[in-house]
C-alpha cells in the first residue's frame, strides 16, 4: 500500500510547507519574461465551447451497467439488517453491495477507515444521506426499482446536527470510536469533541492588561457546499484478474487511485485511474465517495459500472464545509497597537475526525504581527455529512470573526480601519500566529493598494455601506512529477499529473515554453493517467500551477541538458562549449564562429542519429509555496424593508507572486470572491428537527446567479516567491477568505449594526435591524 494513502486530508501536512525550506533559484524581480505573463488561448478551450470535452459522466464503456446508491433517510440510525434478496431477484440486477462487500483493509489507519465508513455505512448510518447499499443494473429504471426493493431495518438513534448543541453535556454521541485528541491526559470516554488544538505565542493575559480598548464578540457561520456544477461521476471496471480501470472526475486521480486501491484491497499498480475534465471541485473532489462503491459493484458484476450522483446526493452526502461558532477577543492601545488577541473556534466535522478548527485556528490571526496571541480549536462531531475541504478551508469563517472585530476595534479607537490594519500587518520576519517566520509577503502591499484604490473613496448613497477585510492562505506544494517529451518535429509534449481545474495547462505550458525558449504554441500540455506518470498529489492548496510549473521548469532544464549534448554530438564539439539560448543550441567561442545555432526542431529531427528520443523528467516535493494574502473592498446596499442586500461594487487585491496567465489569475480572484459573496448573503445548509437536510437542491440552496453580482474588479500584485524559479505563488484560494467579513463590515458601516451570523440572509438582516431600532 502506498504510504501517502494515509494522508486522508489534503492539507494535513500543509503546515510543514508554509515556511520556505528550499531556495531553488531566486529570480526576484525578474522582468524579462517572454511567455510568462501573456494571455494566450487555453489548450482545452475549443473542446469546452464545442461540447467535445469529456467530463465524468460523458464517458462510457462497452457493457456498462448503471450504479445507484441507497442512502439513509435518518440522521443517525443503527442498521439492524439489510435484506437485498428481493432486489437480487429483479431481472436486470447484476450486483448489490453493502458494507459486507467492502471488508476493512485499512490496517488501523483511522483516517482511511473513516473514508471507508463514509463510503458505505458499517452498522450505523451517521447522517441523512449516508450510503447503506448500492446496486448495479442494466439500466437506470431497473436500478431505481432495485433500490426500492432493498429493505433496511433501522433503529433510529438520537442525533445532533448543530455545532453548539453537539458540545453540550448530554448531547447524543456521534462517533463512539473517537476519544478527544490534544487533551492531556487523554479522555477515556468518547465525546463529540474529536480534537483540541492550540496555537500562539506570548502571554495573552498579560497583553490584555495593557489594552486601552478590548472588543469581545461571538460569531456563527452556517454550513455551505462547494457547489461545483458537475456532480461526482465515475466509470469503474474491475477484471477478474484483479486489475482495474477508473474514469473519474477528481482533483487528484493519483490520490483516488491510492485510496481506492487500499479500500478495495488491490495493489496500487493494478488500478489505473484517468481523470476526466473536471466540472469544478473547490476541495470537494479531494475525497472518494462513490468510486470505491463503483469498483466493488464492478468487481462483483464483472462488468463496467457508471455511478453519477444526483444533485440531491451531492448536497446530502458530499462536501460540505464546516458550520462554526467562534469567539474572538482583541485588545489594543489607543495608538492602534494590538496588544493581545485570543480566539476559540468550534468547527463541525460531520461524524468523523477532521482538522477544520485547527486550520481555522492557524489562519485566524495570520495577517497580523502580534506579540501575544492564542487560538484554541475544537473539532466538533455532528450528524451531518463528513466535512470536506472548501477553498482555503476554514479560513473564511475565522477571517469573518477576526476581521469583524478588527473593524469594531479600529472604530472604537477612532482609527481608519485600513490604517489600523496597516499598523498591525505582518511583514517579512514576523513570527506568524501559527508558528513560522514569514519571508517576503504581500499583506502590507495589498492594504496600501486598497488605501489608494479609487474604490475606497467613491461616494456612497442611502442604505449603502462599504467594508473591507483581509485574508490569508498557506498555499501548498507537495509531490509532483512531470515529463517533457520532444517529438521528432520539435514539438513538445508536457505531461503533468495535476488535474487542471481552471486553466493550469495553459499556465504550466507558458512556464515550460519560457524555460525552453520556444513559443507557447509549440508546447502541448496534457494530464496523464496514473499508469503514465509518477505520483502527484491533488490539485489542492493552490498548488496546481505552482508545483507543476516548478517541476515542468526543472524537467525543461533536464531536457535542455540533453539537447545541448545532442547539439555537441552533431557539431562534434565538447558539450561544455554549447549553451542554450532562445530555443537554440549555440556554440560558445570564436573558434565556432561558423556554426549556425541549432533550433530545437533541428536537434529533434536528428535525434535518431544522436542517441534517440529526447526527454526531460522531474520528480519533486515542491517545497516553498509562498503564503498568500489579499485585501477586499465591498459596497453593499441593503433594503431596510425586506432585508435584501445587493453587492454594488467589489474589488479584489491579491499577491500572485508572479501571474503566469493573468486572465486566469483574475478568474481565480473573481470566482473566489463570488463564492464568498454567496456564502455571506445566502448559502446555508438547513436541517430540520428530524436531522434531515431540507434544501438539497440549487433552488433552495441558492448560489449567486449572474444578476446577483456586479463586475468584480481585480488588482494583481506581484511580490515574488523566492522559492519558485519564476516567483509564482498559488492564487486559487485566498480570494474566498475576505468576502464574508468585508460584506459584514459593509453592512455594519451602513447601519451601525454588527452582523455576527453568516449568511446575512434577509431574515437575519431584518432581525438585526429591528434589534438595533429597539436598542
Amino acid at each position, binding site marked *: 500500500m502506498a504510504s501517502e494513502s494515509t494522508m486522508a486530508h489534503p492539507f494535513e501536512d500543509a503546515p510543514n510547507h508554509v515556511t520556505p525550506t528550499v531556495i531553488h533559484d531566486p529570480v526576484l524581480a525578474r522582468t524579462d519574461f517572454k511567455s510568462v505573463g501573456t494571455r494566450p488561448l487555453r489548450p482545452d478551450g475549443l473542446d469546452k465551447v464545442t461540447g467535445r470535452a469529456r467530463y465524468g459522466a460523458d464517458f462510457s464503456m462497452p457493457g456498462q451497467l448503471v450504479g445507484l446508491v441507497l442512502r439513509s433517510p435518518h440522521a443517525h440510525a443503527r442498521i439492524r439488517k439489510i435484506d437485498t434478496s428481493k432486489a437480487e431477484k429483479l431481472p436486470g440486477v447484476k450486483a448489490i453491495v453493502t458494507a459486507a462487500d467492502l471488508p476493512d483493509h485499512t490496517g488501523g489507519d483511522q483516517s482511511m477507515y473513516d473514508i471507508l465508513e463514509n463510503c458505505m455505512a458499517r452498522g450505523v448510518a451517521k447522517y441523512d444521506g449516508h450510503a447503506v447499499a448500492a446496486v448495479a443494473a442494466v439500466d437506470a429504471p431497473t436500478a431505481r426499482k432495485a433500490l426500492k426493493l432493498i429493505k433496511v431495518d433501522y433503529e433510529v438513534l438520537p442525533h445532533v446536527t448543530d455545532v453548539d448543541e453537539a458540545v453540550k453535556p448530554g448531547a447524543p454521541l456521534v462517533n463512539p470510536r473517537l476519544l478527544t485528541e490534544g487533551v492531556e491526559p487523554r479522555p477515556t470516554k468518547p465525546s463529540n469533541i474529536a480534537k483540541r488544538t492550540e496555537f500562539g505565542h506570548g502571554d495573552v493575559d498579560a497583553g490584555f492588561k495593557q489594552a486601552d480598548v478590548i472588543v469581545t464578540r461571538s460569531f456563527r457561520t452556517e454550513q455551505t457546499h462547494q457547489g461545483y456544477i458537475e456532480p461526482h461521476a465515475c466509470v469503474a471496471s474491475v477484471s477478474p484478474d484483479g486489475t482495474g480501470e477508473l474514469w473519474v472526475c477528481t482533483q487528484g486521480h493519483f490520490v483516488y487511485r491510492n485510496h481506492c486501491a487500499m479500500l478495495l484491497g488491490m495493489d496500487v499498480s493494478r488500478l489505473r485511474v484517468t481523470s476526466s475534465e473536471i466540472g*469544478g471541485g473547490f476541495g470537494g473532489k479531494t475525497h472518494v465517495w462513490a468510486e470505491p462503491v463503483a469498483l466493488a459493484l464492478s468487481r462483483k458484476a464483472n462488468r463496467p459500472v457508471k455511478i453519477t450522483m444526483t444533485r440531491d446526493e451531492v448536497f446530502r452526502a458530499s462536501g460540505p464545509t464546516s458550520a462554526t461558532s467562534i469567539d474572538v477577543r482583541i485588545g489594543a492601545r489607543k495608538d492602534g497597537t494590538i496588544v493581545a488577541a485570543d480566539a476559540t473556534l468550534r468547527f463541525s466535522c460531520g461524524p468523523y475526525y477532521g482538522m477544520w478548527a485547527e486550520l481555522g485556528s492557524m489562519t485566524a490571526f495570520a495577517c497580523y504581527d502580534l506579540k501575544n496571541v492564542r487560538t484554541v480549536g475544537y473539532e466538533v462531531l455532528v450528524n451531518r455529512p463528513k466535512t470536506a475541504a472548501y477553498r482555503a478551508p476554514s479560513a473564511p469563517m475565522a477571517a469573518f470573526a477576526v476581521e469583524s472585530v478588527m473593524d469594531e476595534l479600529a472604530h472604537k479607537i477612532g482609527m481608519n480601519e485600513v490604517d489600523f490594519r496597516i499598523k498591525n500587518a505582518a511583514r517579512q520576519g514576523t513570527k506568524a500566529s501559527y508558528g513560522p517566520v514569514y519571508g517576503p509577503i504581500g499583506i502590507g502591499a495589498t492594504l496600501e493598494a486598497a488605501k489608494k484604490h479609487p474604490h475606497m473613496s467613491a461616494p456612497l448613497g442611502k442604505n449603502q455601506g462599504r467594508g473591507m477585510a483581509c485574508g490569508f492562505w498557506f498555499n501548498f506544494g507537495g509531490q509532483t512529477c512531470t515529463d517533457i517529451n520532444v517529438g521528432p518535429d520539435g514539438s513538445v509534449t508536457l505531461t503533468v499529473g495535476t488535474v487542471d481545474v*481552471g486553466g493550469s495547462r495553459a499556465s504550466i505550458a507558458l512556464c515550460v515554453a519560457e524555460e525552453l525558449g520556444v513559443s507557447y504554441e509549440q508546447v502541448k500540455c496534457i494530464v496523464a493517467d496514473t499508469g503514465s506518470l509518477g505520483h502527484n498529489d491533488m490539485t489542492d492548496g493552490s498548488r496546481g500551477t505552482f508545483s507543476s510549473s516548478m517541476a515542468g521548469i526543472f524537467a525543461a532544464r533536464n531536457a535542455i541538458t540533453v539537447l545541448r549534448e545532442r547539439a555537441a554530438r552533431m557539431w562534434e564539439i565538447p558539450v561544455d562549449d554549447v549553451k542554450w539560448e532562445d530555443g537554440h543550441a549555440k556554440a560558445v567561442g570564436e573558434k565556432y564562429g561558423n556554426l549556425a545555432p541549432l533550433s530545437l526542431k533541428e536537434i529533434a529531427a536528428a535525434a535518431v542519429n544522436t542517441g534517440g528520443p529526447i526527454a526531460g523528467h522531474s520528480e519533486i516535493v515542491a517545497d516553498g509555496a509562498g503564503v498568500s494574502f489579499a485585501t477586499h473592498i465591498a459596497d453593499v446596499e441593503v433594503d431596510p424593508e425586506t432585508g435584501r442586500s445587493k453587492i454594488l461594487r467589489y474589488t479584489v487585491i491579491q499577491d500572485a507572486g508572479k501571474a503566469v496567465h493573468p486572465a486566469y489569475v483574475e478568474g481565480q480572484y473573481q470566482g473566489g470572491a463570488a463564492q464568498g459573496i454567496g456564502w455571506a448573503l445566502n448559502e446555508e445548509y438547513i436541517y430540520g428537527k428530524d436531522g434531515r437536510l431540507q434544501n438539497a437542491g440549487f433552488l433552495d440552496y441558492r448560489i449567486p446567479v449572474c444578476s446577483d453580482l456586479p463586475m468584480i474588479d481585480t488588482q494583481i500584485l506581484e511580490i515574488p516567491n523566492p522559492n519558485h524559479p519564476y516567483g509564482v505563488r498559488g492564487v486559487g484560494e485566498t480570494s474566498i477568505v475576505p468576502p464574508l467579513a468585508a460584506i459584514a463590515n459593509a453592512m455594519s458601516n451602513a447601519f451601525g449594526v454588527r452582523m455576527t451570523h453568516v449568511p446575512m440572509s434577509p431574515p437575519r438582516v431584518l432581525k438585526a435591524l429591528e434589534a438595533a431600532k429597539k436598542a
Partner: protein
Amino acid sequence: MAVLVSTTINGDNVEFACDPHESLLDVLRNRLGLTGAKEGCGTGDCGSCSVQVDGRVVCACLMLGVEAEGHEIETVEGMSHGVELHPLQTKFIEHAALQCGVCTPGFLMAAKALLEKNPDPTEEEIRFGLAGNLCRCTGYDKIVRAVQDAAKVMRG
C-alpha cells in the same frame, strides 16, 4: 414501451426510440451521444443542459424526449459550422470566460438565444438573460464581457 420520435437535431433529421418518461437530456446524452449538454441538477435550476427548441432556450432535463417530436432542437454541438466557430464560442475562449467549462455549453446556448432576440443588450439585460445558468468558477464577470464582445462582433 419505447416510443418512436422524429425530430431535427442540429439541422439533421433524427429518429430515436425512447421511454415515455425519459428526459430529452437523457435521450441526447445516452441515446444519441450528444454529451455537450450537461446534467448539473436534473431539476431545471442550473441551466447546464440548456438547448434551443425552435429557437427558445429550454432545460433539456425538464422536457421529455417524446415532446421533441416534430420540433427543431439545437445543441452546443450544432453551434459551430465545421471549423468555423460561432462568435460566442470564440469570445468565450478569448475572454477566459470559462474555467472548468462544464456550464459553458449551457451558457453558450442561453447567450445565443439572448442575442438572437436582443442583439444589443445592456449589461443588466445580459445578467438577467443569463440568470438561469449557474457558474461556480468565474463570478460571471468574464462571461458577461465575452457576451458583450460577441454581440458587438455579431452586430458587425
